[in-house]
């Protein structure tokens, strides 16, 4: 069960600033930064997936993932339901895969 060791480390990451050293004891500047965390983290996750193993150039060279995520972005702009953009992206990816 090699997965137990990284699981224990991940649990520590989750619990340390909640229960061990509560985050309200952190410096005020750090706490203000946390309010801006959500958009930064989500955008970094999307960009990392978009680039994949292609290096930074892959961000601007259009590929199937770009098309699929563009569809997801359009749907997300029109609807607040977070499932629809995913279904749109997977549908576009399947269509591209079938056509190519």
């Amino acid at each position: 069960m090699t997965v137990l060791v990284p699981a224990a480390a991940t649990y520590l990451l989750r619990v340390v600033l909640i229960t061990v050293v509560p985050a309200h004891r952190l410096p005020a500047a750090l706490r203000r930064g946390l309010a801006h965390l959500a958009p930064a983290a989500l955008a970094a996750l999307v960009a990392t997936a978009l680039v994949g193993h292609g290096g930074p150039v892959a961000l601007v060279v259009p590929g199937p993932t770009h098309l699929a995520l563009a569809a997801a972005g359009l749907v997300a702009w029109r609807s607040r339901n977070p499932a629809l953009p995913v279904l749109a992206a997977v549908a576009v990816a399947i269509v591209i895969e079938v056509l190519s």
Partner: protein
Amino acid sequence: MWPPAGRPHRRPMTTTLRHHSPGVADAARDLVPVVVGLTPFALLIGVTSVRSGVGAGTGVASAALLFGGSGQLTAITLLAGGAGTGAVLAAVTLVNARFLLYAAALEPHFRDQPRWFRWAAPHLVVDPTYAMVTRRTDLAGPGDPADPAAFRRYWLAAGGGLAVAWTGLTALGAVLAPVLPASSALDVAAPAMFLAMLVPVLRRARPARAGAAVAGVTAALASSLPDGLGLLCGIAAGVVAAAVADRTITDTAGSPS
């Protein structure tokens, strides 16, 4: 800044006087589309655990114990390649380091909770649960008199429900691995889910857009760094950019910060 500035919650209230605390029903309503969106990602992890030779047991255990798709995929890929415990530990810790930040941001909700909740419930901190709580403006924050029990109910229903669904869907992916066609179409599911959570945040305020743009470009530029370090660089740069943009806007408006 708490709760995050934004549009008032759209849900119609029965009376304007009664404070609305989200309950289990609200959590379920928020959770259903998230689970639908995450289904392809969970299936992919189950399929990958079987096809890579790591085994369905390890795949399903990683869903319950690691409970974070990108960290699980990292662990499974490395284990399949014959990596040692130390390498898996280092890579997964880096990939999941953002949970440290999510936990810090969520900490006010955990402050007045019972001890068992403060030790057990952080296990449910993960991208979708963090985003779900961030999107709800009606959950109690520090200095808010609303009862901690409302957050506890919401968190356990949304996070616990997600954990059960995520583990079950990973197992389903492992079962279906022999019959599912080899396709990379499922790979776009996870980033599409994150994009779906990002877009409503971008509509709120300019600092969020600045932070997202800088985070995305930095993460892409640093993407050749190993073990999710590029992701962390992107997040850090984005947070700094958003904080600077926020301060600039506040100064321009002439109001005290």
